[in-house]
């Protein structure tokens, strides 16, 4: 790793940590969300510098979307979303401390347990293909199963969360057209 990359890596790492601290010290739900986004963007940068540009940029992409959607839900469910009166972002302090302590210990020990290669091996030019092969090659069955599990979870959660079924939409004999929906859609079902 060259000097530029090392400097970049450390800068991004420190920035990610600093933004991570802000997540717990700021008192507005919107600011907290976007501090977390800034932290995750730095993490994406770190991953890119480490030679996995695809994963790095995808982290930025997905986290931007997810944090914005998360902001919507956090603000919908939390009191005092704008931080107009000071509010602590810390909940369940003991449990959180235990969990984060264990996770930190596990990750740190992993750094020492992993058998790192002794000398820098020739790095493949296209790490994206490597990531794809290691995820989709031997682990194709795992990925397919995971995909279905995730999809089933999302559909199931939505079905459980909604209090309207087809009888609400189409009437007792399921013959009511158009459906009685709270908001009209664009397809006219």
């Amino acid at each position, binding site marked *: 790793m060259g000097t530029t990359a090392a400097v970049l890596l450390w800068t991004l790492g420190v920035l990610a940590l600093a933004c991570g601290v802000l997540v717990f010290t700021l008192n507005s739900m*919107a600011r907290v969300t*976007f501090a977390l986004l800034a932290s995750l963007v730095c993490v994406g940068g770190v991953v890119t510098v480490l030679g996995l540009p695809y994963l790095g940029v995808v982290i930025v*992409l997905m986290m931007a979307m997810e944090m914005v959607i998360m902001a919507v839900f956090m603000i919908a469910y939390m009191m005092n979303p704008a931080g*107009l009166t000071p509010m602590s972002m810390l909940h369940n302090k003991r449990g959180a401390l235990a969990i984060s302590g264990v996770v930190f210990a596990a990750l740190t020990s992993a750094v020492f347990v992993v058998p790192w290669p002794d000398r820098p091996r020739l790095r493949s030019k*296209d790490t994206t293909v490597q990531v794809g092969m290691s995820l989709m090659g031997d682990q194709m069955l795992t990925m397919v199963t995971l995909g279905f599990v995730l999809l089933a979870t999302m559909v199931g959660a939505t079905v459980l969360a909604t209090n309207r079924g087809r009888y609400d939409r189409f009437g007792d004999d399921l013959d009511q057209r158009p459906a009685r929906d709270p908001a*009209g*859609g*664009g*397809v006219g*079902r």
Partner: protein
Amino acid sequence: MVEAGAWWTLLAAPALLLGFAVLAVTADAALTARDAGRPVTVSAAMRPLLAVPRALVAQPRRMPAPDRMLWRAGVVSVPVAAVLSTLVIPFGNVAVADLSVGVVWFNAMEVMTWAGLWLAGWGPNAAFSLVGGYRFLAQGLAYELPLMFALISTATGAQSLRVGDIAAAQYGLWYAVWMPVAFVVYLAGVLAFSFLGPFAYPVGQDIAGGVLSETSGVDRLMLQAGRWLWLAAGAAMAVPLFLGGGAGPALPAWAWSLIKTLLVLAALVAAVRRLPVIRADRYVEFAWVVLIPLTILQALVPALVNVNR
């Protein structure tokens, strides 16, 4: 073959993008003048540009208890993301940085507008502005996935995420020809992330300008510039993704890139002017029930073609 440009392309690319955006704005103004029955003159076309000096000297509007930092961050990030997205777009045979994951980079920058516009709506601490920010998210949930599948279709066709490779892979037949669904969905996505024309819902007149309603001066200029910069960036990206990049007979590559970008931009400006604003609740259902299945099928086509190759 696309190559990385010299250092000065870092300055030339934003300047070129700005040029395209200004051209789109003036074309829009000229068409407005024509539709209104006024003479189509240079001064009529240049009229919207007068808003630039006006915005620069305008007195900033103050709101009670705004989140000034987030507001500013959101407003700035829209045009900045538009400019950053052009790093990977080749013009002729030169891109500022032909990243190996160029398509993902473009998409990531485009998603930054989600954050930017929501923040621009949240920051001023005003109802209509906030409604505008939420409207963009609702619209984003509708347009983003079809747009991603459209981008994936091109990347699958070229078996590469590098924009230069995608342009080169269209030797002989443009992706716009054999992936028409992806092309149309992509163009709709461009209008959506520049929140113009049919997708001007977050800045709708029914909510007094929405995200734009409380901005003034430089902030307003930034957001308005961001819209047109995104339109220009989307038009420029359509050329390597769907129209073969700089490839073409007789003329040099940069000339073909210029011509194709201008044509796409003209089509987009025409669409902006002709199509009515569509409500997000209607477009969400259309996107999820019609567009997502269509674009998934579209992505399947290049996949099958490549398997058979």
